[in-house]
């Protein structure tokens, strides 16, 4: 039994324009203590996947198929009350716009105390004590716990949100673009802090980001999402050394390197697919240089190749570099 596993998950949003198929069959497996980087562009379903795990999707979202197994138990079958107890205590999350994740009318410390008291049978003073520890842990002055969010800078709020996510010592932490709003120098500090804490606390982590470079610096395993599906996943080192899916390859080719000069970047033509009416067959086929007839009719399954997983009919034949 693996620590955390998603099997065949499908989810759509019912909207006025039709069903937006945000997750179209996702399989994922994680061991305890692993850090998984989930890469993909905006609107490819990675945030929806994070929210599905905690069952925090809006009302118009419908999970139609699949299982989310945590310690072998299906989270999708839990009652609302059971789920409430699992949230934050076992699985917690750092949200995309952490800037707004703090309620402006309450003191930062109180918001963390609240999370602790919702799950643990300790006194308020003990919880406050824990907040001080957490603040020192993430490099914030514990004296500032009594301040309101608007008195914090962006970087401090980010740290506070991370402190809050760690408040109940969760086993799994989902971080959704935790540093996009920050400057590179702050980003570096936060990423290193999270890395350090993960090692120290033995946490398992899912790191959702569009920035492959960040994944390469922090994660063990990487999964690339495209059009609501995982198209490739394997160890970060392997994946970056030899990306197998044409989309992953294109993504890596289109990132300008800092230190080596390249003649000219190659871009991926076209636009990401609409999840309202995803293309038939392989969802990448309209943009793929290697696409053939079969790509337009049959959906490639995620299959084992070179120690990783890839969803492409012709993965073996596509060269790199």
């Amino acid at each position, binding site marked *: 039994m693996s620590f955390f596993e998603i099997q065949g998950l499908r989810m759509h949003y019912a909207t006025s324009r039709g069903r937006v198929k945000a997750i179209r069959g996702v399989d994922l497996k994680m061991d305890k203590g692993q850090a998984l980087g989930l890469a993909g*562009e*905006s609107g490819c379903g990675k945030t929806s996947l994070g929210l599905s795990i905690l069952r925090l999707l809006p009302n118009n979202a419908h999970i139609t198929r699949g299982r989310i197994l945590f310690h072998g138990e299906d989270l999708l079958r839990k009652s609302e009350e059971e789920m409430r107890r699992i949230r934050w205590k076992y699985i917690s999350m750092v949200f995309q716009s952490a800037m707004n994740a703090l309620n402006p009318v309450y003191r930062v410390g109180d918001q963390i105390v609240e999370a602790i008291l919702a799950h643990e049978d300790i006194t308020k003073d003990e919880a406050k004590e824990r907040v001080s520890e957490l603040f020192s842990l993430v490099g914030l002055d514990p004296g500032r716990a009594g301040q309101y969010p608007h008195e914090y800078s962006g970087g401090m709020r980010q740290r506070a949100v991370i402190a809050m996510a760690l408040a109940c010592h969760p086993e799994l932490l989902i971080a959704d673009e935790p540093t996009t709003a920050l*400057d*590179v*120098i702050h*980003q*570096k500090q936060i*990423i290193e802090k999270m890395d350090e804490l993960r090692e120290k606390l033995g946490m398992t982590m899912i790191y959702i980001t*569009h*920035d*492959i*470079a*960040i994944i*390469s*610096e922090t994660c063990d395993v990487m999964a690339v999402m495209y059009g609501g599906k995982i198209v490739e996943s394997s160890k*970060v*080192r392997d994946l*970056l*050394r030899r990306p197998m899916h044409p*989309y992953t390859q*294109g*993504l*890596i*080719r*289109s*990132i*300008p*390197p*800092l*230190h*080596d*000069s*390249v003649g*000219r*970047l*190659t*871009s*991926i*033509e076209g*636009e*990401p697919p609409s999840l309202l009416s995803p293309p038939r067959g392989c969802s990448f086929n309209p943009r793929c240089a290697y696409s053939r007839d079969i790509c337009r009719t049959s959906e490639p399954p995620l299959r084992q190749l070179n120690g990783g997983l890839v969803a492409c009919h012709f993965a073996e034949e596509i060269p790199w*570099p």
Partner: protein
Amino acid sequence: MALITTENLRKVFPVRKRLFGGQEYVTAVDDVSFKIHRREVFGLVGESGSGKTTCGRLLLRLLEPTSGSIYYDGVDITKLTGRELLSFRRRVQMIFQNPYESLNPRFTVYDSVAEPLIIQRIADGEERRRRVIEALERVRLTPAESLLRRYPHELSGGQRQRVAIARALVTEPDFVVADEPVSMLDVSIRAGILNLMLDLRDDLDLTMLFITHDLAVARYMCDRIAVMHKGRIVELGSKEDVIENPQHPYTRALLSSVPRLHSLSKT
């Protein structure tokens, strides 16, 4: 000769007024002097709040400098008014960060691209239409005719940014300020826009001020790079010098903070 020269440029913004107290100020651009040569892509790099965007706006007279001067083709543009200002506007343009915001949602593609022509009273009727189509084709939006009556919300992010670029280039300007033109776009379409801009620079002999927070993008796009920090330029040099051999501690800190695609450099 330099196309643009700034001397001791300074911009101070008033921030909140107190009821009985005085006015508080913040200095966004502080004593900035540089030259941009013809046909050069000049990069302005820094974090948010470093003053790089304010600097770009000053060059286009979207903001009035508190002090200092800006020479464009030898003329001090801080003193232009009326007709002279309008003809200056014809020679300079801007590409904005957010293509979702820089096009008026109530304008069709045709309206947006034609607007500079209407304001500048260049061409009308069939000639105007011809120029609009030409501009759209130049940014590789084809077939251009089919896009003319579309609204921005019917376009993808990449298409919108191309429309914005077409609009900026329709009056055939000499100088373009590009303010983070790809930071809101998906990774997979960024390279396409960057390549397009480099091609256009060559085809149209453009001079460009390229504002970005991304050092790797700056390296790809620019000839020279200026690093801004707290309103000042802390380092200026060729891109190789600035990135491979940074002198200022802030530039070094910035460079060491950029996450690297580790295994890639080995291949």
